[in-house]
Structure formats: C-alpha cells, structure tokens
C-alpha cells in the first residue's frame, strides 16, 4: 500500500546505492499528520488575528470548547450514537443488497443483462430528490433515514464490486476451474479475493455517501443525530456547532479510514509481496 508507482526520479546511473536504510514506517506515519495539523494551526491563527470572523468560521479552540461542553452534558454522545446506528443499519442493508446484485451482475451474464440496466438508470437518480416520494412510501420515521443511507451506500459498492469482478484475471479463473473448483468455490477462492481491493474502495466511498445521505435524512422529522444537531444549529446560526458537526464527521472519516486501512493490511498482505518484486 505504500510503494508509489513513480515515486523517485529514475537513476539510470546508480553509482553507489545507499546502505540499508532504517525502516521509515514510523517516520512516515508521523509525516502523515503534518498537513492536517498544519491546516488546523493555520485556521486557529487566522481566527486569532481576526482574519476569519467567528461568524465565517469560528476558531478550532472555540469549536473544541463547544464540543467539550456538548460531550460533557452527554448531548453529543446521544446524537452520535443515533447517527451511527442509522448509518450502520443503512450500510448493512444497502451494502448487502449491493453485494448480492453486484455479484449477480458481475458474475452471471443473465444477471448482467437483467440487473445492470435498471441499476445504471437508477444510479443517476439523486436519491435525495426522492425524499418526497420516500415519505409517501416509507413514512417519516427511522425507516426514511435508513432508506436514504441504504440508497446512498448501494451504488459505490455495487459499481466497485462489479468492476472488481470484471477486472479479475480470467486466466486465474481458468486455472481454478482446472483445479476442479465449482462456481461456489471459485467465488470464494478467486473472485472474492480478487475483487476485494475494489470492494474496499467501494466501502470507503459508501461510508462517505452514507453520512451525506444522513445529513439530509436527519433534517426530516428527526430529533436526534449529528445531522439534526447541525440543522438545529444552522437554523439558529450557531456556526460553532455546525463546524463541530463537520469536525465530528471528519474524525469519523479518519477513523473509518484507519479501520479500513487496517482491514486491508490484514487481508491484502499478498500485495506487499507483489510490490516488493
């Protein structure tokens, strides 16, 4: 995951390569913190010297203070938990459906012909524009929010899975067939591991889409959730709470990224070898 394809300039003349370098892993991990920290510092400085008015963008320290206050009185926890529950449920449903349909379309010619065209048409349906219809179909309760998340999560997973399956080296599938693997076993041993990197990417995009949908969904008759918190703050122009909400999302983004990176490292060890050669 770390070997860039074109990182260093080529050295057609290699006079004397450096001796074994110390493992740069930890150094790199810290370097990845540089730009986020720099951004936050610049933002704080701009707010302190008055370049940014508190209305335009409150200082990170203000936002943190607000966050601390809301966290201390339990508000933040409650809203976060509710949002996470909705997101998880929607991801599960939308992701599950995407896995089934994506696999059907990617694997079976018939599935491709029957499933893919409607999905391609539905892909551009802005599901957030469906809200008025969804209210009629599923009501204004929790199911509305979960449906919106599921719709948002469906497409990235479906498309990446589909593409991942299509990109699998046909020759490996042939080799598995000659080893006597039936369709189910080929799915397990060849298709799934081969499509896994694409699936991870789809999952990343789906998690982002889930939050996006939730922000809109939690504006329809919600009493809880980070989206609701932000909407409420928006209505009363409490910019610090709005920015706090955004910060929470950003942290969730980083956390989920770390989780997925970890999962990738666990399941995609074989790619490191690929990179090393």
């Amino acid at each position, binding site marked *: 995951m770390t070997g860039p394809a074109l990182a260093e300039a080529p050295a057609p003349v290699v006079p004397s390569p450096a001796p074994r370098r110390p493992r740069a892993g930890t150094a790199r991990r810290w370097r990845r913190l540089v730009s986020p920290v720099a951004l936050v510092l610049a933002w704080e400085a701009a707010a302190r010297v008055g370049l940014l008015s508190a209305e335009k963008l409150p200082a990170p320290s203000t936002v943190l203070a607000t966050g601390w206050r809301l966290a201390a009185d339990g508000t933040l926890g409650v809203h976060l938990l509710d949002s996470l529950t909705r997101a998880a449920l929607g991801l599960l449903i939308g992701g599950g459906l995407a896995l089934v349909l994506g696999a059907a379309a990617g694997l079976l010619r018939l599935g491709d012909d029957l499933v893919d065209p409607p999905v391609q048409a539905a892909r551009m349906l802005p599901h957030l524009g469906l809200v008025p219809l969804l209210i009629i179909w599923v009501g204004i309760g929790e199911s509305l929010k979960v449906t919106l998340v599921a719709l948002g999560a469906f497409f990235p997973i479906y498309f990446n899975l589909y593409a991942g399956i299509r990109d699998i080296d046909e*020759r*490996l599938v*042939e*080799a*598995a*067939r*000659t*080893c*006597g*693997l039936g369709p189910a*076993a080929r799915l397990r*041993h*060849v298709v799934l*591991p*081969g499509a*896994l990197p694409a699936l991870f990417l789809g999952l990343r995009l789906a998690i982002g889409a889930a939050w996006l949908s939730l922000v809109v969904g939690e504006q329809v008759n919600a009493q809880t959730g980070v989206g609701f918190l932000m909407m409420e703050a928006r209505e009363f122009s409490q910019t610090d709470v709005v920015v706090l909400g955004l910060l929470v999302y950003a942290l969730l983004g980083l956390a989920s990224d770390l989780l997925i990176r970890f999962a990738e490292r666990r399941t*995609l*060890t*074989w*790619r490191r*070898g*690929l990179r*090393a*050669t």
Partner: protein
Amino acid sequence: MATRPARDLIGPVLTARAVTRSFGPTVVLAGVDLTVAAGETVALLGGSGSGKSTLLRVLAGLDDAAGGHWTLPGAAAVVFQEHRLLPWKRAADNVALGLAGPDVGGRVARALAEVGLADRGRAWPAELSGGQAQRVAVARALVREPDLLLLDEPFGALDALTRLRMQGLLRRLRAQHGFAALLVTHDVEEALLLADRVLLLDGGVIAEEIPVRLGPAPSPDDPAFGALRRRLLDRLGVPAA
C-alpha cells in the same frame, strides 16, 4: 502423493477429432485429431505460435469458441505455460486449491517436497523465483493424482539439474499411478526421454506422429536416441551443426 492402485483403464483417456480454432481471420487449429491412451505420455512439439497452448486450452474444456469434438476424463489437471498461481494464496494454499479428501495438509507438503520446495510453502507467489513458481504449479497439478495431465512447457524455466529431477519425478509418478500425459515441450531430448509418442503440430494440424521405442530407461547416448533426435530436429527445421 499417496499410492493408489493402478486402474485398468480401457480405451483412450482423451480423444479429439477435427478440432478447429480461429482468432478472427487467423486459423490456428485447422482440424487436429488426437488420441491419448490411458497411461500413455504424448509429447507435443511445434514452433513458437503454432497453436500448442491453444490446443491444450481447448482440450481442457476452457475454450467455448473452438469447433470439433473431444472427450475428457473426469480428472484432468493442467499446468499452464505461465504459472497462474493465485497471488492471494500462499504456495501451499495454491497447491491445496480445490483438494478434497483426507490429510490435505500432508499431501500438499509431500507434493511441495517432491518439487524441492518443502520450505517455501508459506511464500506468496510474488516472492517466488520464476522456476519456483513453475514448480509450485506442477505440484498443484500432481497433487490431485489425475487420470490425465496436460502440461504446457512445465519445465521451461528450470535449470538443468532441477529439470532432470522434475523429469525423474514425472516418470516415477507415472509408474506409480499410471496417469496419461500430454506434454508440450520445446526440448526435443525431453520429449524423447519422457514420451511414448511425439506429435508435431504444424500448419494447424498434427503434421507428424513418431512413436518412441527406446525402452524403459532411454539414454541420450543411445544411437537410436540420436537418430530419433536428429529426425525430429530435421522435421522442426533445425539444421545439423
């Protein structure tokens, strides 16, 4: 590779009639007739690009677009020209792919040991050298004790010593289990050492069929061996030195 009682197979283990295959306007196979009897080893020679790999794919049932008729036994194993190991499985897991029955672990370990890679079972395919990967692919085919082996230059990336060892291994296993083999090779000596019959693919058909009768332990020093070798090389267009 546990011993298995040799079966009395009657009739050919592989028959192909009038196999044709074209890629667009290019006809690669123009009507290949082929029979491999049970327990027989047939070598398939031919120039680069003559259609050997294409024929093997057809016979392995992997090519939908080919014409003609052919039958395959239930248990055929293939070694492709490239190793085709699954990059996400370690060497041992690649060998164990689709393997059922008792003591899979032990059989896999023995197969890897027989190709000289007892200690590389936990390596990823990307960590293997060219010859090592090829040997893992051979182990993957041998471990399933098939009735027919389809081998596409299985020893092409091996040094002389390893190649000799692998040839010995193939001979020994054949004697033990009695499987048949269709072996694509570029090495005329190898063909003569291993095969009961040599086929020459040229112009999209089997242009020549040469039985090899050199006894159980053929030696390159045998004058009959030299004569056959010369005949094959002539047929392949290689001038005498």
